[in-house]
């Protein structure tokens, strides 16, 4: 399978604290991330706040400056692209955001919102656009008369459907979804999850999902990458990650998610400490202050991503072995 989007050693950093008499400091939001997303595949990026997942998504979209590495779309370096090429890429790579209330312009009618990408990329004429909007509304499970209404007349889940319809309008190859479910009610989340599954089957679209919700990721993803303080700590097929996590952080993350029907929780198993500030990341392996398996090596040397099983990589000096 060819890679649609490939990030090759991408780093993103932000300047902080500059001024007339002060020297600038840099915050490494994202360090050396290499990932590929192939056609029709769903790749999930899992991480907590401060992990850099949103910064990475922005870098992929060209919305954040890349300080190292490159993002390649269908083989071409995005930074070196001509204007026309970049515009074509924008048509093929669409986004769905987290906040269904903020991502839709309250002054535009739904038909205008969905038609906007068509207008921007010069797709179709007026008549065909009307037809497309109706088809899209059907696809996302909204009534046809929604086209003439305004965002504030819809619930959060319905607005998210509008946002998805908008993303699907220019027939993209990739949708980047940044926490598309977290602002929704539980019973609505599953509706949207199902929608993604159905759309994926119907259009063969590739999905780059960013989420902290491990259950939702498990439901949708083919491959999963776990991020900690800007670095990938583990990358592999969904089942491998969930059933045989190799990195202590991934294991701890999976263990912290509360489960239904397992009885009252037993305190004492939680991961200790907090995510360090990106301004002062711990030396060596960023995770070592919180890791039970940390050794002297971990304090000194940052582990590189290495294969622990076919297609399954982990950045750890002491990856967890299989307990069959």
């Amino acid at each position, binding site marked *: 399978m060819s890679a649609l989007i490939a990030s090759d050693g991408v780093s993103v950093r932000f300047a902080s604290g500059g*001024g*007339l*008499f*002060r020297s600038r400091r840099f915050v490494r939001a994202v360090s050396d991330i290499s990932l590929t997303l192939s056609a029709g595949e769903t790749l999930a990026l899992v991480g907590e706040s401060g992990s850099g997942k949103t910064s990475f998504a922005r870098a992929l979209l060209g919305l954040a400056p890349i300080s190292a590495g490159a993002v390649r779309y269908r083989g071409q370096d995005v930074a070196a692209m001509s204007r026309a090429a970049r515009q074509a890429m924008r048509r093929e790579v669409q986004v769905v955001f987290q906040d269904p209330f903020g991502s839709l312009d309250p002054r535009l009618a739904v038909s205008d919102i969905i038609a906007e990408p068509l207008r921007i990329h010069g797709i179709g004429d007026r008549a065909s656009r009307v037809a497309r909007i109706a088809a899209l509304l059907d696809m996302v499970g909204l009534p046809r008369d929604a086209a003439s209404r305004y965002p504030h007349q819809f619930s959060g889940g319905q607005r998210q459907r509008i946002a998805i319809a908008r993303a699907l309008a220019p027939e993209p190859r990739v949708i980047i979804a940044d926490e598309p479910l977290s602002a929704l009610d539980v019973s609505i989340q599953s509706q949207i999850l199902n929608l993604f599954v159905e759309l994926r089957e119907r259009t063969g679209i590739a999905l780059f999902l960013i989420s902290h919700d491990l259950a939702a990721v498990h439901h949708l993803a083919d491959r999963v990458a776990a991020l900690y303080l800007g670095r990938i700590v583990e990358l592999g097929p969904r089942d491998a990650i969930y059933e045989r996590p190799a990195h202590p952080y991934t294991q701890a993350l999976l263990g912290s998610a509360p489960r239904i029907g397992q009885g009252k929780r037993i305190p004492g198993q939680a991961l200790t400490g907090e995510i360090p500030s990106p301004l002062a990341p711990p030396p060596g392996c960023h995770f070592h202050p919180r890791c039970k398996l940390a050794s002297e090596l971990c304090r000194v040397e940052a582990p590189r991503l290495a294969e622990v099983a076919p297609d399954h990589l982990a950045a750890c000096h002491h990856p967890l072995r299989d307990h069959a």
Partner: protein
Amino acid sequence: MIRFLATRSLGALVTLLVKSFVIFALIGLMPGDPLDMLTQANPDATPEDVAKLRAIYGVDQPIGARWWTWLIQALQGDFGYSRAQHRPVLEIILPALGNTLILMGLAFVISTIIAVFLGTIAATRRGRAIDRVINLIAYTGISVPSFWLALVMIYVFAVRLGWLPAGGMPQTGEGLHGWLVRLTLPLLTLVMVEIGGLTRYARSSMLEVLGQDYIRTARAKGISTPRLLFRHALRNAMIPVATIIALGFGHLFSGALLIENIFAWRGMGRLILEAIMGNDYNLALVCLLFTTAMILVANILADLAYSWLDPRISLGGRRR
């Protein structure tokens, strides 16, 4: 902090420098020569005498050179002479500055306290009768021109009721009583005009704060309403109000101009008017510069206060 003060002071000095040139040029562009009045008063002056006088006073030089000469002298502490009053400019300005600061300072403090008080009451009793009354007072204050109000005050309290003098400075020997009596009317006028806008801002700021989550938390803690208002709400509500006050400094100084003239209060406002009308070049220039300097200092102090009120704001103006 040092860095902040250094940067801002540098900025202020540059502003003053530029402003001095602009004012200098503007005054120079005014019709009439500083010497015209002199020559008009003296019918015996011949064109040669006038030309000689021009050379002596340096009035025949281009604006840029004149400004530079003035600057060099000013930096050495010599701000020149007032043509009309025949005294060094500094000698005239400093007492006037004092008088303005007394009037302005008191007006500022009193109107802020009253406005915050009224705004808080209006916000906590929103929609009720007292809120409407306070809003009415506020709108009246905003709509009424200060000079009109001043004249009405004089008419009512000085002419009709004879309770207070119509204006003027306290005479020597009148003591504190003299000051209080003379200050009352101008102060009252200024305060009544100022509290209008300020009350509205205080009210809306307080309303917004009262709707915040941390106020709900404070209520959940069982804190009494007075304590809640004072310790939790007020400090947060004052933050935007502080900005408004800082912006209003300039307004306060210019408003002083009208009030001081009507009440014959010998302050900077009156001095500026006299100087400009009387073509008193030097005096006008230095007066305006002093006023500018005061506003710049006031803004720096406002920024310091701002960062003290809100720990999230660093002195650079950035969010921490």
